[in-house]
């Protein structure tokens, strides 16, 4: 027990448990909580890729849409339960992610960003033309597959589960050997390569993890809506949200996206009845935070205080 306490794991474990308990027990709006949790998972996944391996993706909405479509088609054609179909969504995202990587792996910097954006848009166009998946009309989830009385709770727990698995998974990963390699790449890619870290392999791993997480989140989100269409599922707005959250909160940390989430949804709820004010403040935040705090909000806090809620730093002894 004392090793556990000293390892610094007690605080995050306790924190997550308290948050999860609060979400489950308090009479909150579970639908909003669900959306927050799913976007948190996406942001953590994307941050693992961009914040640690330096690959700035503008195309992760591809996986959000893909996950949604795979879930809908799996449920509608095989009758598998929606919950299990999330695994199918993750699996397909893994395979498609590998395929995309084959096309993108030689691209660096802005070329990678634009390349994946092009692929995401191509997927949107493909799904909009593909009759089997409903083309631009989109598809509805077969209502036989859902139980109306428990539906809202089911999607909430799925979202909670995904968010916890993602945050804990990323945390565990970063504390492992791979995590050390990822952080070395984050801090100095050339340096990491020079000491024998397989940069490309680690980037591929981060890319696939982020793809799977975004696909699962997309699958659960559109499950909660029961309707998916290409313009919504492959909407670049998903990517922009994640980008905002991670950049404002702080790249390359687990805490950053959590702070970003609070700010994004805080602004949205604050200006819920005020229309464009939300966009104005979102824009101002996106503009001012990087200007004043180049490492995002968490970057500033960390540089001033040295705090770590999720201790991933190694200190040579």
């Amino acid at each position: 027990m004392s090793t556990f306490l000293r390892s610094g794991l007690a605080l995050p474990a306790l924190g997550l448990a308290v948050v999860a308990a609060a979400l489950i027990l308090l009479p909150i709006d579970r639908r909003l909580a669900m959306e927050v949790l799913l976007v948190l998972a996406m942001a953590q996944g994307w941050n693992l890729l961009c914040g640690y391996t330096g690959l700035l993706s503008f195309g992760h909405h591809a996986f959000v849409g893909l996950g949604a479509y795979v879930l809908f088609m799996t449920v509608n054609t095989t009758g598998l339960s929606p919950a299990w179909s999330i695994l199918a969504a993750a699996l397909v995202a893994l395979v498609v992610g590998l395929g995309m990587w084959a096309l993108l792996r030689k691209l660096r910097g802005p070329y990678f960003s634009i390349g994946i954006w092009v692929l995401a848009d191509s997927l949107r166009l493909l799904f909009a033309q593909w009759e089997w998946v409903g083309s631009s009309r989109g598809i509805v989830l077969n209502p036989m597959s859902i139980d109306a009385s428990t539906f809202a709770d089911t999607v909430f727990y799925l979202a909670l589960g995904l968010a916890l698995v993602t945050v804990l998974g990323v945390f565990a990963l970063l504390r492992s050997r791979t995590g050390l390699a990822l952080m070395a790449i984050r801090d100095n890619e050339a340096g990491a390569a020079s000491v024998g870290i397989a940069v490309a392999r680690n980037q591929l791993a981060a890319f696939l993890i982020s793809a799977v997480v975004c696909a699962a989140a997309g699958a659960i989100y559109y499950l909660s809506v029961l309707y998916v269409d290409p313009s919504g599922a492959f909407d670049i707005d998903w990517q922009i949200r994640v980008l905002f959250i991670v950049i404002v909160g702080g790249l390359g940390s687990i805490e950053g996206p959590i702070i970003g989430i609070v700010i994004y949804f805080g602004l949205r709820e604050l200006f819920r009845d005020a229309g464009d004010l939300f966009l104005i403040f979102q824009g101002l935040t996106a503009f001012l935070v990087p200007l004043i705090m180049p490492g995002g909000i968490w970057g500033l806090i960390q540089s001033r205080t040295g705090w770590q809620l999720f201790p991933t730093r190694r200190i040579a002894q």
Partner: protein
Amino acid sequence: MTETKHAAIAPATSRRSILKGFAAAGIATAFTLRFPAVHGQEASTLKIGWVAALSGPGALFGEATDFVKAQLEARFGGGIEIGGKTYSVEVLVRDSQSSVNVAAQVTTELMTRDKVDLIVASEALASVAGGQMAVINRTPIISTLFPSDAMIGVRGGPEAYSNNGTPWTFHFLFDTADVGAAYMGMWEPVRSRLNDTVGTFYVDQPAAQGFAHPEFGLPAFLNQAGYTSVEGGMFKVETDDFSNQVATFRDGDAQILTGFMFANHFASFWRGAAQGNYKPEIVTIAGAFLFPGGIDALGDRGDGVSTEIWWSPKTPFASSLTGQTAGALAAEWETTTGTQWTPVLGYTHAIWEVAIQALVASGDPKDREAVRSALAATKLETIVGPVDFTDTPVPGITKTPLVAGQWRKAKSGPYNYDLVVTYNGTSAPFVVDDEFKLLSDLS
């Protein structure tokens, strides 16, 4: 103000239009209207969600929101009496931002968080994306401004749409076939003077894809009527150079031109046609000519272009709420806003006619099942025509009348163009203002 309207139609100047939109719309794009009952303390509150396209590319479809909101204030002031009980009314207006994702989000929020008794969707995306959730949450939705057949299509077919006969969503508008029939009927009187060759082109966008569908869309009607098509195909929304299409139609000698696109597309095409010496005799385009601003954008060269007519001041029906005729409603709009009438005004008004009628008829508006049944039993004369859900092939979907006509240079009055009805189909009460004229007859 007129300029803002052009800009809103044409994405080419969208940045400016957004900035102007900020100035014009201020910040009050989503809001809650509260109408306390006169006997406040004993009344319960009726909560109605209103999803409208207040911003984004479809903002023209939400243009009448503020105006109809003011009319509701007159109706709901002091609450509403139903079944001998007075209810306070709260109308929660939500902006869909013309996005299917936002529409889904705000619609489900209205159901699960605000727990509204009814959702009025002058933005059809609320019913497209929130329709399944309406069944789950047992919250009725009324929607309009989207072709009926397209609504059934996106919701997964008739059974899925109507929840196997117990619909929670109620939608009224004509369908694509009505548009096709109206076009054929409108052209018939002048057909013998032309070569039967029709040029077609469509913007690549969901509503247009239904329109371009070879079996159910316009091509089927053209084939059936024996026209020869010169196909210009589908083009991307971003397109602004139409020289290929101009050449195709000119070389194919297409004397009739039709299709589906937005006003900015047609304006670009029309400039190219003038330069490329393509002079069709009939130009009937869906979408582009819906709003007066789209014709104004053509300058002097909009005279005689033709369209289906959703609603206009000449629509021969009156409101069940205010007793106004279509002409009176349009006139009130024009004095209040200082801009020409818009077809969405009639439908935005009519959807509230249906909503209020159903709430009153339910006897207990807090009982959603009662409201649902009242909607299913709705048979009401509205300002857009009869809305009758009692006898329809697909429960929860009904059609409203559609006619067709031509925009003509206004001979008097403050606006550049007037819309005249030249074809009234089978919708007898509509008066035909004038016969259909070829473009060369008008120049």
